[in-house]
């Protein structure tokens, strides 16, 4: 029996290696080449431009000067750390809140709601066809003093409340609202990868509801949770509109600083340096997390032999 297993294992492994080797000369690569070149230009070129500008002297608009580190020095000696820290904090809070909010919804959509899950998916997706700014502005109309919520409270209950607009809680509300689908849908996918029989087996073998969650569902849904969390984190970190529209810029987000540097500041090199730092930070975080969590192992495609 053991012998047959090993034979089988190598049999399934071999074709994969063979396919990879063939990739180098495959007609597939040749036909994909134009697209690859286009993508390389479209994605890499702007990044390279930003990278290049970040080493140009302050306030210049071309690449003809000797490179300098002055923009990075300006970033690190200034108070930009405040914007970085606050953006980071808001992104973290958003991710944590969304994890907690989305788990029960995602669980229901993946396992319980049946046909109603499609309706919910639609209900969540359709608003995405409306621009983010308009949706956030809708929240302003809802929350503003004399708006739908406070105005309604006053008219019906005589209760005169203060609006939460133009402060940190409103920004968090906006971030949670806007990025919910980005956490939710990968999480739904993650949870639907957990087979019903596996959770039932755990339950059948004496696991409590909590143990089933911790020992089986959570680890097996991790790829989806991780991808959703990272997506949300990166997007929140680079967010701008929530603070601008709902938060009255109570927090100056790092993306706001970058925009200001490129527009009103007329300082492309500084904006580029800020962008490079943000890209490096996000990139390092993503790569670290993805390598730290062994997706293959979670997905049961183990391979240490």
């Amino acid at each position, binding site marked *: *029996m*053991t012998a*047959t*297993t090993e034979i*089988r*294992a190598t049999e399934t492994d071999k074709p994969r290696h063979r396919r990879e080797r063939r990739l180098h000369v495959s007609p597939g690569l040749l036909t994909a080449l134009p697209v690859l070149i286009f993508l390389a230009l479209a994605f890499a070129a702007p990044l390279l431009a930003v990278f290049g500008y970040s080493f140009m002297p302050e306030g210049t608009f071309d690449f003809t000067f000797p490179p300098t580190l002055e923009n990075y020095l300006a970033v690190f000696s200034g108070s930009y750390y405040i914007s970085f820290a606050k953006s980071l904090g808001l992104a973290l809070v958003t991710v944590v809140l969304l994890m907690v909010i989305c788990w029960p919804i995602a669980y229901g959509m993946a396992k319980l709601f049946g046909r109603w899950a499609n309706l919910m998916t639609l209900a969540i997706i359709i608003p995405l066809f409306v621009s983010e700014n308009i949706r956030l502005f809708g929240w302003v109309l809802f929350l503003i003093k004399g708006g739908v919520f406070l105005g309604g409270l006053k008219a019906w209950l005589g209760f005169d409340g203060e609006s939460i607009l133009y402060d940190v809680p409103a920004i968090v509300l906006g971030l949670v609202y806007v990025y919910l689908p980005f956490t939710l849908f990968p999480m739904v996918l993650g949870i639907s990868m957990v*087979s019903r*029989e*596996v959770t*039932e*087996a*755990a*339950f*059948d*073998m*004496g*696991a*409590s509801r909590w*143990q089933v969650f911790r*020992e*089986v569902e959570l*680890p*097996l849904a991790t790829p989806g949770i991780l991808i959703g969390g990272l997506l949300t984190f990166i997007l929140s970190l680079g967010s701008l509109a929530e603070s601008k529209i709902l938060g009255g810029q109570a927090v100056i987000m790092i993306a706001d600083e970058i925009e200001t540097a490129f527009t009103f500041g007329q300082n492309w090199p500084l904006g580029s340096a800020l962008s490079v730092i943000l890209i490096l930070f996000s990139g390092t975080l993503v790569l670290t997390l993805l390598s730290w969590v062994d997706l293959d*192992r*979670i*997905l*049961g*495609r*183990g391979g*240490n*032999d």
Partner: protein
Amino acid sequence: MADPILRLSQLSKRFGQFEAVKGIDLAIQEGEFFTIVGPSGSGKTTLIRMLAGLEEPSDGEILLRGERINETPANRRPTCMVFQSLALFPHRSVGQNIEFPLKMRGVPPVERMNRALDLLRLLRLPEDYYKKQVSQCSGGERQRIALARALAFDPEILFFDEPLSAIDYRLRKTLEKELKDLHRETGKTFVYITHSLEEAMVMSDRIGIMRLGELVQVGAPDEIYSRPANRFVSEFMGEVNVLEVKPNGAGLHCPVLGSTLQGPDGKADFESGYLVIRPEYLRFIAPGETAENTVTGVLYNEYALGSRIQYQVRVGEQVFLVEKLREQRYGGKLDDEVTIGWEARDSVLATE
């Protein structure tokens, strides 16, 4: 007889309008290997899920050693199930899989590991599999890991939900026997469901045949084999010859053959029923030989089935299947006119 370990009385399950299980009464004895056989849609999976505690009955009772367990959830029942997909934890090693029920129970790690290694030995898996990833194991090995995991739970009853259905024929044959050996070694009560009566025959002490939510026959394999309660059961056992018959004064009139046949002893207490003859009980009648029932037709085709050969004989509209061991093969050629026959005692009467 001793008190049964598991007793079902009028057990029913409805999903909305649909009644999947319809008032089943059954007693399963301690240490028994009981198999429920039925085609898909017969309600057998719903039944075993109720027994395991994964589905709550709509009506009736499940008694474990005389105590009602209808409302006890699966994680508080002293029973354990091996699932069709095996439901191994893909993110855990073989050892962690086997230890899972012990971990849930708070057994200390060293003790857990010893128990897991014992079980690996019991199931004839190498000890170094303890650290292996489940994903690196073959189908048969996974089967054993799932068994080891269920045994680690030390259940009073072990349920099986068609665990061999996805396995290729040869390996399945081996595993069926191993399972029966394991039953003997552990002495536990096994309740097994499958759609293959053949599989059930190999392993079971008793078999229950299910159809459309009802148990149509319960009995030892021999009983089921030789005295199928109805046409459904007899056809379920594999390829058989079924002739529609109506009792008359002289015997059983068979309209499709236009002749009267002799049935087995005992009354045919129906207006219209079936005479069932297994292909191996049919034989070719050489000139000068006789049998209690004979028919003449044309040899249409033959099929080699390993050790046996099956022949298709056409008598008018009726097709007969005849099986012979290879060494007793029929000497003639296709399109020969042949006479086949059988003894009345080798046939069985069945209702619809």
